[in-house]
């Protein structure tokens, strides 16, 4: 058993760290205050090839594995930033990669790799379909060589900072389905064209953290049939296929956050003197930080194993889901330890703790709520009755 990291993986971490050093805490603080999108960072990540890590070489990418992609996102979050601003490009691409036609891949992937197109938006959630994806109502009706789409999506992140959106929509009415996991299809939507044609409206949806989320209204949105990915009605399956990668990547962002929190907390606990000695000399301060660190290490091992299985094309649903669960919880434990350690200063914006605290809290709930992860483990790993 080899727990070491390859030289290449170390190089990747170092290079991403180097890039992130140019985007200081003040940069992130300013974005957060303004609710702005980090265009410069995303441009730098794209130019250095990081967002094309998973794209095959023949389309201009680096053809790395999920384990490498995980290291990239982890380092961004560990630097004090938030990889969520760009992660979608990595995991939404999986659906296009695995299920897109050659023509679709030729059309989109090289442009994505070069940074001429951005695929940062993934439209799944609706007001009446969050955890229960198969309930979604946005309807795509076939008319000749195109589909006409009507409906509403909610919480769709970065739609205003993306050229393309991967859209999950219903192509067969729910009541007509024997198997409720069928009847949905995936489309690549050209957001710019749709906006220009007035067929789509994107409204910002402010949230607790700067996540660039939006509500999207589609009114007679025309999508060429050629932009449907894979077979009609198999969309939910395709999305499911991309979930393991997503879980591993989200786990990695959590681990990066956790590293940031424990490092900050340990440093502050060592420096801050109260009652004549560093606060870290008290077990009540020290132990929660040490505990969170241990939890992070354990989650990291599971994440590494999940990524290792994924990159060997072995089944990894259980490991990927559990890695997401444990990593997001460990990061949250670290966030709380860090906030507690900082006392009142943890709430002061300039310490960055409260910002990271808000950011890492999301990962317990989205892109998938940990309850649903537990439901998966209960049912599919332990064979208990379905609970949802």
């Amino acid at each position, binding site marked *: 058993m080899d727990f070491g990291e390859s030289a290449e993986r170390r190089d990747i971490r170092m290079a991403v760290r180097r890039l992130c050093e140019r985007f200081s805490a003040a940069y992130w603080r300013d974005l957060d205050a303004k609710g702005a999108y980090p265009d410069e960072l995303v441009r730098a990540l794209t130019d250095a090839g990081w967002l094309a*890590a998973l794209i095959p070489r023949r389309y201009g990418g680096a053809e790395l594995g999920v384990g490498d992609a995980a290291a990239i996102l982890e380092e961004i979050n560990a630097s004090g930033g938030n990889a969520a601003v760009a992660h979608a490009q990595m995991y939404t691409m999986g659906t296009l990669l695995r299920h897109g036609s050659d023509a679709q891949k030729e059309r989109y992937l090289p442009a994505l790799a070069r940074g001429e197109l951005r695929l940062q938006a993934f439209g799944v959630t609706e007001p009446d379909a969050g955890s229960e994806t198969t309930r979604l109502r946005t309807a795509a009706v076939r008319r000749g060589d195109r589909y006409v789409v009507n409906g509403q999506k909610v919480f769709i992140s970065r739609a205003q900072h993306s050229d393309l959106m991967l859209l999950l929509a219903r192509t067969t009415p729910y009541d007509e389905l024997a198997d409720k996991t069928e009847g949905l299809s995936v489309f690549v939507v050209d957001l710019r064209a749709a906006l220009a044609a007035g067929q789509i409206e994107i409204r910002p949806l402010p949230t607790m953290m700067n996540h660039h989320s939006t509500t999207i209204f589609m009114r007679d949105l025309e999508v060429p049939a050629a932009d449907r990915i894979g077979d009609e009605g198999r969309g939910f399956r395709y999305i499911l296929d991309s979930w393991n990668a997503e879980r591993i990547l989200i786990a990695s962002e959590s681990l990066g956050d956790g590293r940031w929190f424990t490092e900050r907390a340990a440093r502050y606990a060592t420096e801050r003197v109260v009652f004549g000695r560093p606060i870290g000399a008290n077990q009540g301060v020290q132990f929660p930080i040490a505990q969170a660190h241990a939890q992070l290490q354990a989650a990291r091992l599971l994440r590494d194993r999940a990524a290792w299985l994924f990159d060997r094309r072995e089944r990894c649903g259980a490991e990927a889901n559990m890695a997401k669960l444990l990593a997001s919880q460990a990061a949250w434990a670290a966030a709380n330890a860090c906030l507690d350690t900082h006392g009142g200063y943890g709430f002061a914006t300039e310490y960055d703790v409260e910002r990271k605290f808000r950011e890492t809290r999301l990962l317990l709930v989205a892109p998938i709520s940990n309850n649903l992860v537990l439901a998966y483990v209960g049912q599919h790993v332990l064979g208990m009755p379905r609970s949802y």
Partner: protein
Amino acid sequence: MKFLVCLKQVPDSTVRVKVGGDRRSIAAEGITWSISPYDEYAIELALERKDADASTVVSVVTVGPARSRDALRQALAMGCDDATLVTSEADLSALDVAKALAAVVNEAKPDVVLCGKQASDDDQGLVGPALAEALGWPHVGMLTKLVPGASGLELWREVEGGHEVWSAAPPVVALVHKSEKEPRYPSLPGIMKAKRKEIPEKDLASCGVTPGAPRPEVALMDLPPQRGQGKVWKLDGDAKGVAEQVAKALREEAKVV
């Protein structure tokens, strides 16, 4: 034109250094290593020449322990063409390092040798000038810019309140203070390319160096004492009174004025 950049792997600037058990060196445990910042500027200056003229060759070399290979790969990933590692697990004196580098220079025959003006770990600034001396080449310090000129190279160096422009015909050794642009970061395609490059390894003997040049010994290494807590005076309208108290404390307690 051929450049050779000499670099050193040092603890990353973000590392919080701890003193080792021997109290004469830093604790190496858990350290993240990277290229010394001035050496990164040197790489950037050389790569800018390569951007301007694709026939330019930029090589890098380091003398150091096996882990220094990571720093060389980082330089290759930034866009350098080839790298050489001279391994020495033991910490060497600046003169021995310069001798080993001179052997590499004599073999590679670059037109320009660039070094950082000093390494960010020991801040001695000895290797560059010692290398110029060992080679018998002219040397220019505090370099900030390098452009081809009428008679060879224009070498811009920072001086108090401005800059000087020197010209030199290669071969020359220059010690870099800064580059105009921040050093480029290694790109992912760069890392993939670097992975395929062999990094030849030499030992000191093959460079004709028997370590033993005189060197200072570190007697004791210690972290600065922990800062105590500050003192806060409340400004309750009596600014003059408070100012007097502060001045008194600065003079009598802190003894700084």
